[in-house]
């Protein structure tokens, strides 16, 4: 209490000094606590991990012969305990999975370690003179199907485990009261108690098939040498360990790697600079415009807002591509400049001017969104705060810095961080405005305004350099995860989800 009073008595700069000192003096303790907490956090996790194995052990040791047979024949315990249909479904699943794995999956997963060894050959038939292709291994398919098989294997193992668990439960329930829920009741509960299974199955399948498997596949690709020169089916690619990450830092001894490393560091810095400027200019200018529109005495509020909102309503690619032409060499902007006797100014020629150009245009693109979301919040600020400030003789500027800004910061802080993350991945604005221009021949297939994502796009679509694309994708993930972690560790709404409801 005493120290709090002392803190409140300090002037602003001193408060800041005090906070900084406090932060650094407690740093060692925080560090130590982190390591002290490791056992307390890992032991429950390990216990959770070991639980299925304990269950399996129990089911095998204490289970009767019906349960034990279900280890081999999935669903046998259910058939034996009158849940015939359900048990048969499990058995059918087992048969299909074994057939799938034996006749299809094994072919690919057995070659997963090498990604194929037989190169496709072109052989000329000596008699007819027509050459024909002898198919070799296809590394892409081996990697893709291998990944799918691994996921399927994990899924099947989980199904196997849960079927045994259910059989063991059935045995116990049967021994106690001899009554068992029949299939019909089970089926009906899919609309009620187990409704989540009905609703979530398709979305989760989509998530696994079109997001999780592709991402795992791409993480694998980061450890291979898959590029234009090794493109299947004519060639094979293979595992190379951490070589691509090494190239990112300029290692590996290839001349190409130095260019790649230079491009990466340059694009990374520009991505962060861009994200900071794009987020904060939008936020502050948007807020000022919103305050201006909401000012007492300003008429036709709706008209001003509509003028801004048009930008949101028109599809973004239309306005961005149009603007890129307006500022082109022959465009209207240079026409106006010529009218005043200067110019021409070409954003595609000068890197700095191009960067300023995209940030300025991004203000035009993003401010309306901020105005829309600010307007509601501004109206929620209690009016008596301003009235009492006015009586105390506060200037409008002072009222802005001491009332409006802190309030807005408090409410919109989290969305600020998520828009920062969004700007790191802002493909449209950069790609459709400049397309990465000006082109820089010292860079690895990138221009001066290329963000990491647009570079990733170029590497994938036009260069087919998948190995580096995958590495860049992983780096972007690390950056985004870092900033999101700060956000989520501070946001109360995420932490106390149940309280919030």
């Amino acid at each position, binding site marked *: 209490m005493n120290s709090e009073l002392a803190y409140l008595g300090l002037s602003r700069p001193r408060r800041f000094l005090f906070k900084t000192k406090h932060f650094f003096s407690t740093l060692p303790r925080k560090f130590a606590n982190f390591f002290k907490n490791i056992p307390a956090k890992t032991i429950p996790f390990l216990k959770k991990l070991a639980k299925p194995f304990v269950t399996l052990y129990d089911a095998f040791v204490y289970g009767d012969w019906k349960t034990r047979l279900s280890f081999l024949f999935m669903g046998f315990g259910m058939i034996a305990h009158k849940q015939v249909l359900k048990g048969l479904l499990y058995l059918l699943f087992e048969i299909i999975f074994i057939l799938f794995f034996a006749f299809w999956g094994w072919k690919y997963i057995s070659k997963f370690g090498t990604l194929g060894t037989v190169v496709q050959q072109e052989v000329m038939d000596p008699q007819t003179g027509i050459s024909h292709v002898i198919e070799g291994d296809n590394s892409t398919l081996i990697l893709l199907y291998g990944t799918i098989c691994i996921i399927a294997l994990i899924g099947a193992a989980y199904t196997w485990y849960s079927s045994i668990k259910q059989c063991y439960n059935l045995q116990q329930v049967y021994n106690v009261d001899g009554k068992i829920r029949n299939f019909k009741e089970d089926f009906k509960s899919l609309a009620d108690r187990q*409704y989540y299974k009905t609703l979530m199955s398709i979305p989760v399948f989509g998530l696994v098939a079109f*997001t999780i498997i592709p991402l795992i596949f791409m993480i694998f690709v980061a450890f291979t040498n898959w590029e234009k020169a090794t493109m299947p089916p004519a060639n094979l690619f293979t595992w190379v360990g951490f070589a691509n990450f090494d190239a990112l830092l300029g290692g590996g001894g290839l001349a190409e790697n130095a260019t790649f490393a230079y491009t990466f560091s340059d694009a990374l810095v520009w991505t962060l600079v861009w994200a900071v400027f794009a987020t904060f200019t939008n936020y502050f200018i948007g807020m000022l415009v919103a305050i201006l529109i909401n000012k007492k005495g300003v008429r036709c509020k709706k008209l001003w807002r509509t003028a801004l909102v048009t930008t949101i309503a028109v599809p973004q690619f239309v306005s961005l591509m149009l603007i890129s032409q307006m500022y082109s060499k022959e465009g209207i902007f240079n026409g106006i400049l010529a009218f005043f006797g200067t110019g021409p100014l070409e954003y595609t020629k000068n890197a700095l001017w191009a960067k300023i150009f995209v940030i300025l245009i991004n203000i035009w693109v993003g401010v309306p969104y901020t105005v829309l979301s600010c307007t509601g919040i501004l109206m929620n600020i209690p009016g008596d705060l301003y009235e009492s400030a006015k009586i105390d003789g506060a200037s409008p500027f002072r009222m802005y810095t001491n009332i409006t800004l802190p309030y807005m910061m408090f409410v919109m802080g989290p969305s600020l961080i998520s828009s920062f993350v969004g700007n790191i991945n802002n493909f449209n604005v950069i790609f459709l405005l400049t397309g990465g221009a000006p082109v820089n021949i010292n860079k690895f297939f990138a221009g001066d305004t290329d963000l990491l994502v647009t570079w990733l796009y170029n590497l994938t679509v036009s260069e087919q350099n998948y190995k580096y694309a995958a590495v860049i994708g992983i780096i972007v993930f690390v950056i985004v995860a870092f900033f999101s972690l700060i956000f989520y560790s501070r946001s109360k709404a995420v932490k106390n989800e149940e309280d919030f409801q």
Partner: protein
Amino acid sequence: MLFRKNYHLTNRVSNTQKIKRTVGNSIAHIVLTIISIIWVFPFIYLILQSLRGESNGVVSYIIPQEWTFNNYIYLFAFEGPNAFMKWYLNTLLIAVVSCVFQTIFTLMTAYCLSRMRFKGRQGIMKIILIVGMFPSFLSMVAIYQILNVFGMVGNPVGLILVYIAGSASGYYVIKGFFDTISRSLDEAAMIDGATRNTIFWKIILPLSKPIVIYTILITFTSPWGDYMLSSYLLGTNSENWTVALGLRYWLTGNNGQAVQAYFTRFCAGSVFTSIPIVVLFFFLQRYYVEGVTGGAVKG
């Protein structure tokens, strides 16, 4: 006398205040007018250029010397390499189908994650969070290969599948809305014998009209503006393109030469594409604002 003096004084103060306020307000109006002009100017420019008749390339003046509707008439081509109507119908098909399914699946996911407590719920939320941190284009290389296996590269159906498959990850804003609906409603219905299924369709959905409309609006408009995924998955055959791909081709195609012949047509195509979406947007603007701020306020 004293009263009179005082009266005078207050009157004068209020007069200076009045002047100050009028000046402030006029400045505000002037600034707002300038801002509005800056924000609306490109669209006026767009419409004027789409009506230009004397040449098709980019020019450095605003007002056309010759007015014409030919650029719009040119759009009504259903066949050939520059068949704008084909692109338009493709986009419409993709937007409508993916909008219907995405809305349904996103609502279902959000309902489960908001209302039901089950094993794996936290896991699914965490996985969606982590997966969302990867740049969305990264997974496209693999999706391209998967679609390739089924011969669906260059086919709008493949693109629709990709859009729909991503619907689970958009649950967040809707879940936030569902969370604000009181749980006692569910409990009361359950006591009366309603199943979860009934609660979802008969109680939660009717109460969530604003957020449902918001989701429909977002999912319907996003395919119109998507260039990144469609350019990779729809391939080089212009028969299968969406509006975004075709219009970009008119600007950058043929090594950047296309713009000299197609700029005014690009403008006409842009106006033609934008008008229905702008009308839809202004019609449903209230719901859009609710969705945006609903997501933002819950810091």
